[in-house]
């Protein structure tokens, strides 16, 4: 269970504190999935950084039950260009000083699961965007996290690769019994992957709406009428925000 209670965050901008997030409260049930969506610059990434502990809130609190092991995929994959695919995936385990044989076994399994077999000695720069994303996913999964944080993991990919990887993320989420938290600016992606969808306003980000979306997780959800209905709700909410700010 992830519990976010009245969180506020400011960034210092030339000695003036500018609010980034205001009064954010929501919960994510264990083994749930949550999509955070909002206009660009609304503080989605900051919210994910808060959840994953890279930033600390100015007020409010974020309570994560137990002290779970977390995996994070940052924007633009966050892979290290000077490390091979194998080294990138195994890095978390190397940092934890795991045994070499253990690392080899785990990484080899992930390479197979992610369809990266034969590419272990390649460098990220030699791979397509879709494959780099798989490496990033494999690296985040290598330490067997209970919570997986993803910051726009698929935003730079073409439509087809994107759908394929959305399915992969879905498979991973269901097979490994993890809690998945995903930041996205794509309405379809949010509805496809997020059982709970947090809609943020323009900066400073406030919660406009929390949409419960129990259909997420069904592989053929994309074709269902309910899927389009949910997308419509999100679109209206985000549009209303845009219009509201213009007048």
């Amino acid at each position: 269970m992830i519990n976010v209670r009245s969180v506020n965050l400011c960034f210092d901008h030339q000695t003036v504190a500018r609010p980034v997030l205001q009064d954010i409260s929501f919960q994510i049930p264990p083994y749930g999935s949550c999509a955070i969506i909002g206009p660009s610059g609304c503080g989605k990434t900051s919210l994910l950084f808060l959840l994953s502990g890279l930033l600390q809130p100015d007020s409010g609190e974020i309570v994560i039950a137990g002290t779970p092991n977390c995996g994070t995929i940052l924007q633009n994959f966050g892979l290290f260009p000077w490390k091979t695919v194998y080294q990138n995936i195994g890095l978390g385990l190397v940092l934890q000083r795991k045994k070499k044989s253990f690392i080899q076994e785990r990484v080899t399994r992930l390479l197979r699961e992610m369809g990266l077999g034969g590419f272990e000695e390649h460098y990220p720069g030699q791979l397509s965007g879709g494959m780099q994303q798989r490496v990033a996913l494999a690296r985040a999964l290598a330490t067997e996290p209970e919570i997986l944080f993803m910051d726009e993991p698929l935003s730079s990919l073409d439509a087809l690769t994107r759908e394929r990887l959305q399915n992969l993320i879905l498979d991973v989420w269901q097979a490994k019994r993890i809690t998945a938290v995903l930041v996205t600016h794509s309405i379809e992606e949010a509805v496809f992957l997020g059982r709970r969808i947090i809609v943020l306003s323009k900066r400073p980000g406030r919660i406009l709406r929390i949409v419960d979306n129990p259909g997420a997780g069904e592989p053929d959800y994309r074709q269902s009428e309910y899927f389009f209905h949910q997308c419509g709700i999100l679109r209206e909410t985000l549009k209303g925000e845009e219009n509201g700010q213009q007048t």
Partner: protein
Amino acid sequence: MGSKRDIFIAALILLGLWELSALLLDSIALPEPWLVVKDIGRKLADGSLLDDLAISAARALLGILLALTAAVPLGLAVGAEESLRRRISPFIYLLYPIPHVVLLPLIIILFGIGNFSKIFLIALVVFFQILVTTRDAAKDINRNYFYAMQTLGASRWQMYVHVIMPASIPKIMTAMRISVGTSVAILFFVESFATTRGLGYIIMDSWGRSDYVSLYTGIGSMAMLGFSFYLILDRIEKRLCRWTPS
């Protein structure tokens, strides 16, 4: 660096220009290149040049290595740690522009007139070139890499090993390339006193005797020495930087 063919062509063009200038100038201060090439060949064959070449190579190499071992760790730390950067950078900017070769008298008093003083002076000059480049390399690393390391639970030391050091290596290699040129130039200066060995000595000695062919033999050997260093650096870079798009 270019293919063997390109290097060969460049060498031919340079020799051609040299020949042309020698013919036009018609001065004993610029002998024709074939005389010099013949002299180098003879002295290499009888081994007399080899000793001086080896001694100069050793002095330059040790100087560079000494500078490298001091400048890289310091540069990485000053670049990566903001508090250090604030405090140390003014020292660097004050000390870097000094013509370090003028410290020679002091170095001789401290370390004597032997080889160590020569190596130390080369190291001192090259040290700042490597330090400044390494510091800038470590300073400019994309912050996302640090975030990514943080999400994997890295310690500060692990940041150095897995991010700061490898990310800085391409720029350190560039600094090394600049240092090779500098070290050979300083070599001439440090071998012009208190030694009877080395390429710098050959140049000074031939100059004094107005033996211009030998003088250019010394100069040509210095060029070859620097060139070999570049070849070695290229090899090392290919090994260390396999990940950079070439």
